[in-house]
């Protein structure tokens, strides 16, 4: 299982980045553990992690929430549909959160690298992760929740 020192960089990075790029406050809900596979929401961003930590992180949110976030990032150029521009905004946000988390982890001596984000759409998306148990980190915001599903484990020495 993942130690707190691994999880906190992800949560901290999520607060910081979301606040900075959308000016939206996020609060952490109750963490829980679940078994693979991860059941997605309408908008899902999957990022692979390798190095001292291995596995995947999957961000899940509803399309309505994603649209609000994307609009905020795009200087309030409201996108009515979840078009290419909105998609690139959400991927960028996920990428930045993980990029920041990876920097925090490296400062604590854990070196990881990430794959480019993959966007999966559709409420029926199911992601089978290599790591069989994953941590569910719900983030509450005024515009709906974002769930960070962290299916990670430490590299076996």
């Amino acid at each position, binding site marked *: 299982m993942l130690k707190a020192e691994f999880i906190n960089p992800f949560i901290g990075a999520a607060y910081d980045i979301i606040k900075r790029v959308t000016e939206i406050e996020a609060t952490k809900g109750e963490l829980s553990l679940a078994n693979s596979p991860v059941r997605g929401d309408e908008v899902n961003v999957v990022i692979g992690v390798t*190095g001292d930590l291995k596995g995947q992180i999957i961000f899940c949110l509803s399309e309505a929430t994603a649209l609000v976030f994307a609009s905020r*990032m*795009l*200087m*309030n*150029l409201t996108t009515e549909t979840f078009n*290419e*521009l909105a998609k*690139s*905004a959400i991927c*960028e946000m996920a*990428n*930045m959160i993980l*990029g*920041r988390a*990876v*920097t925090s982890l*490296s400062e604590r001596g854990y*070196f*990881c*690298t*990430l794959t*480019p*984000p993959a966007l999966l759409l559709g409420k029926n998306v199911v992601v089978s992760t290599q790591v069989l148990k994953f941590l569910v980190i719900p983030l509450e915001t005024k515009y709906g929740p974002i769930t960070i599903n962290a299916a990670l484990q430490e590299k076996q020495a």
Partner: protein
Amino acid sequence: MQTIRVGQLVPGMILAQDVLIPRTGVTLLPMNTVLTMEMIRRINSFSIDEVYIKVPERSDKEKNEEILAPVMAETHEKSVAAVERVITNFRKDSFTQEAIDGLVGDLLEQVEMDADLLLNLTHMKSYDNYLFSHAVNVSIISILIGEQLGYEKEELNQLGVAALLHDIGMLKISVETWRKTGTLTPTEYQEVRKHPEYGAELLAGNMSSEIQAVAAQHHERYDGSGYPRGLKGSQINYKARIVALADVYEACISDRPYRERLTPQEAIKLIVANQEGFDPQILKVFLLTMAIYPIGTFVRLNTGEIGKVIRVSKNQPFRPILSLYFDRQGELLGQPIRLDLSEDVNHLLYIEETLSASEHKKLSERVATAFSNRPWG
């Protein structure tokens, strides 16, 4: 191959030799490794001072830019000088349509060759001939918007000419007034507000009614809050609506006697905050062209390096092409490094923040002095 201090390593550089862990002879990273930020940190953690990297091969694109850039910079300078001549001749009534058409024709050619490069040049300003460089820059920006709106060559030419002459009415305002550093007195202010009418008068008989309309209406606002007549929406000539937007943007990113320039991003934020004053369709097209990090914006990467946006990618507004100038410690790099954030290998890099307006000014000057032979700026 060149030696580089570890502090100046940028992700993407390629090792020319194995990097060894000091005092052990163990290879930390082999030759030909493409460095990632994580690797750079590791090298740092072993207190290694210098490594050998391969001198990056410039892509064909970069080589073309190197050739094109000085040519375009020269043309920009010449255009500004030409505008000065044309407008001065205008005053003396020895004005020719051909001279203006020729000028705009040149600008159109340049836009076709490399619009981004041209847009970069609009950030190089000379305060002395503000009015003339402003005319050229507003013309360039208007043409770019017109292109995105689907204008054909003929229309673009009309638009370009109209934009070039939009402020010609300023010729009738005394030089002391428009160069004043303090606030204008009510009388002076009223006088300046007459330049659209003066412009239309000057152009009457010489230029098409559309060009006159742009001069007369470029301060009208879509919601009726403009001047001199308070025209609203479709009452305003379409090209005037385009030039109105280009005019405001260009003015925002320029130093004026009464205020310092805004960063491209701040200019866009200001425009968006006042969006009722502009045609919504034109505004949308403009914003999409300018993107989130407009050309000319100075940014800091998450890894600490500082650079400037030189090209935007319409599909990936968050992943423009940068020219890096400063390393993580704020030291000037030996030479600017081109970084394309949309390349997969760079996906771990992102723009951490946009620098403030005063930092923009300071850094532009430092960069201009250091790399004066590179008109990317």
